[in-house]
């Protein structure tokens, strides 16, 4: 349908288009409620979507490779990035206190939020105290994580996303499918339809239908400019918060971040507690790792350093600056000896760009704010294994993400660790964990939630046959002697997830155990060379 409308742009029935978009939005919402596997299957069957993600992955991998021409230099830089992030985490409580002290001295008001709901409430309170009814937002994943827009809109406050991708996703009533490129799942024609049907200029009229990229961006820019001028408040994220100087660093490409943080009288920055770095000297290396890994840029078009509200005599800038430090499960991650490196993340998205699973199913399949490998690690820890444990199986442990990560987060190891947590025989009630104190090691929320009797019995049976050599040899003998059975339809049906697209594997006539023994290859090592082959004779 979209193709027809796009090619027949002179005669677009706006009402029909709007109806179509409403149906698409309803389908999107329904799909998001379903199981991971259903979403993955739908994505795999969507040719246009797969093409978008495959193209984007190839493009971004190529861009990254081009700005890291020297493997040795890249490796050294990743070592530095890892060291800086680990230094931050090793000193996290103290650095956060120092950050608060220096921000306060700079005139920034600091707030602490333990949960998503608390963070939303704090932000809402700040807005109402200042009679703010309209908000422009710079791109911020943590506000997606705490579902801030939904919270504020339910309370009558208008939130407008000002990053082009976020703006489109908001227009569509969807969620971002990538943490750096939120609308990466949409092609040009889809964006043209969306802008024409749903975007409104300041005088309330529709924007004309166009598939010209410059025109599309020009139309959005005109709408956003007007909103920047009128908004009561700006809400942004933070890429790095410098403890020693009390500076909030914000990386962006469109200038919308700078507008959001300087035009309205009130600026509220929101960040996860892990984003702190100790010193300004840590910023350049993390910045270059971030932009090169994310988009293959040596540096972003804009780099904002926010050090407080407008001072006396200054012409512009907000009158108030607030920082909301969000925990939302991060203390729990911090306390876990194996999963702690999760917090090293600088949110560049390189792991998803390099993930062969993400390249095929796209971001929405994960059903979480953070998709791809980092999403598989972060989301179950923040929102619980019960709800988000299923996505953990969508990983072949191929290691491409870990190899791309600029701060060397061992992502495959963390995914494996979370699988172990998910099937742990010790069940931990999610409710009990969320109210636990932050002092001791805290277990992953919903530990053991994915353990099933069937699967645990299979692994017990597997362990039994592979533990005891005679049992194992009986099994392999049965397999090799009964190899004909593998050709049967029953075998194909039993192995259906494999055999749906692959021929059934054929066991050999004789196992290597048998062949080696028949060949007289020694079974036991004896330092005395006289009788090495005894056990096989």
């Amino acid at each position, binding site marked *: 349908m979209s193709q027809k409308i796009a090619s027949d742009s002179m005669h677009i029935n706006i009402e029909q288009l709007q109806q179509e978009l409403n149906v698409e939005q309803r389908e999107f919402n329904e799909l998001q409620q379903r199981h991971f596997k259903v979403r993955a299957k739908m994505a795999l069957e969507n040719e246009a979507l797969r093409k978008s993600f495959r193209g984007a992955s190839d493009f971004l991998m190529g861009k990254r490779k081009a700005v890291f021409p020297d493997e040795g230099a890249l490796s050294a830089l990743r070592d530095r990035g890892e060291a800086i992030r680990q230094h931050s985490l090793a000193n996290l409580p103290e650095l956060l206190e120092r950050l608060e002290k220096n921000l306060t001295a700079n005139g920034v008001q600091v707030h602490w939020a333990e949960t998503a709901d608390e963070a939303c409430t704090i932000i809402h309170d700040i807005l109402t105290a200042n009679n703010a009814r309209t908000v422009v937002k710079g791109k911020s994943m943590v506000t997606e994580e705490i579902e801030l827009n939904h919270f504020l809109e339910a309370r009558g406050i208008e939130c407008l996303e000002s990053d082009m991708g976020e703006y489109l996703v908001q227009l569509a009533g969807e969620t971002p499918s990538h943490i750096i490129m939120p609308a990466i799942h949409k092609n040009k024609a889809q964006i043209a339809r969306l802008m024409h049907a749903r975007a409104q200029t300041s005088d309330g009229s529709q924007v004309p239908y166009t598939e010209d990229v410059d025109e599309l961006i020009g139309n959005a820019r005109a709408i956003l400019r007007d909103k920047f001028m009128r908004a009561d408040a700006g809400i942004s994220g933070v890429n790095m918060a410098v403890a020693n100087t009390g500076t909030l660093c914000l990386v962006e490409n469109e200038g919308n971040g700078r507008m959001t943080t300087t035009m309205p009288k009130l600026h509220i920055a929101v960040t996860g507690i892990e984003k702190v770095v100790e010193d300004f000297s840590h910023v350049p290396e993390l910045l270059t790792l971030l932009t090169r890994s994310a988009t293959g840029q040596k540096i972003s078009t804009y780099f904002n350093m926010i050090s407080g509200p407008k001072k006396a005599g200054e012409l512009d800038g907000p009158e108030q600056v607030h920082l909301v430090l969000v925990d939302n499960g991060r203390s729990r991650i911090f306390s876990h000896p194996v999963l702690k490196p999760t917090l090293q993340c600088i949110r560049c998205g390189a792991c998803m760009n390099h993930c062969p699973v993400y390249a*095929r199913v796209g971001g929405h399949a994960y059903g979480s704010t953070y998709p791809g490998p980092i999403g598989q690690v972060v989301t179950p820890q923040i929102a619980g294994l019960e709800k988000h444990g299923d996505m953990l199986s969508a990983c072949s442990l191929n290691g491409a993400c870990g190899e791309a990560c600029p701060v060397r987060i061992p992502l495959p190891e963390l995914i494996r660790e979370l699988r172990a947590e998910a099937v742990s025989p010790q069940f931990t009630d999610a409710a009990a964990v969320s109210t636990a104190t932050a002092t001791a090691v805290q277990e992953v929320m919903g530990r053991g939630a994915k353990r099933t009797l069937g699967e645990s019995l299979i692994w017990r049976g597997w362990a039994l046959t592979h533990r005891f050599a005679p049992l*194992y040899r009986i099994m392999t003998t049965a397999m090799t002697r009964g190899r004909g059975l593998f050709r049967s339809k029953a075998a194909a049906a039993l192995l259906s997830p494999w055999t749906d*697209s692959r021929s059934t594997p054929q066991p*050999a006539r004789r196992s290597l155990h048998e*062949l080696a023994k028949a060949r007289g290859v020694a079974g036991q090592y004896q330092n005395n060379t006289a009788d090495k082959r005894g056990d096989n004779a």
Partner: protein
Amino acid sequence: MTQHNTTVAASRHQRVYPPKPEAVYLLGTCLVDSFYPEAGMDAIALLQHAGIEVIFPQSQSCCGQPAYNSGYDEQARAVARTQLQAFAADIPVVVMMGSCAGMVHKEYPKLFAGQPEEAAAIALAARSYEFSEFMVNVLQLEQQLAQAEDQSPLTVALHTSCSARRGMGVAAEHKALVENLPGVQVVEPERVAECCGFGGTFAVKQGDISAAMAADKANAIAATGCQRLVSGDCGCLMNISGTLDRQERALPVQHLASLLYTRLNGNDPFQVGQKRSQQYNKKSGDKA
């Protein structure tokens, strides 16, 4: 890692290799054991030809990786413990697949951390080598291929598994062995470093995604026009060849060890038209 890397990159992965030992263990892996035993026999022949005594403990089974990657640590440990006992003597262990080598070399120390067998696990990890890693770094086999019996032209697509490439860092070793075979031309499929979609239990738990990845890999390999697919990991071989076979464009596949042995000795199974396992069955009892 490759030779292009500077000292920084190399230092992270640097491994000190022993001189040629008198004897080695062969860790056959469960997949080779039941599905590709000729690869194990070819590796044994190659090692014996180099003058090394090969010990194949009959009590070995599986490294424990399937359970470990699924999060069943206790079951993985129980099976891994059997391997600690099977490979107890202080001699090098040559592992037939990259993924199992990675399990033993990298994961055993973690799996047994704080357990009574921790020291034994660390020791086994330290003396375990992936097949191509051992052949190149200990035996310098890549420098001894010029006299290969079979030098007929052959186009080979080499699929280096993710665990061999990224886990063990032996992509260069794989390549050196195949490229130095006279007459063999190595062709590189598009997106050569991308996962084929096998991933052990992933192929069953996420069958749809795995199949999509396997189909792309099969297409990329078929597009090279190669005559044969070679890999050091039989999971990948089974996955890719099974996909190609189902699509009725079957391609001869071989483990790296089989390609090396049969080229060196001029007994290419795809030319003489017999199954290698049959050949070994017939010869059973003969000494190499």
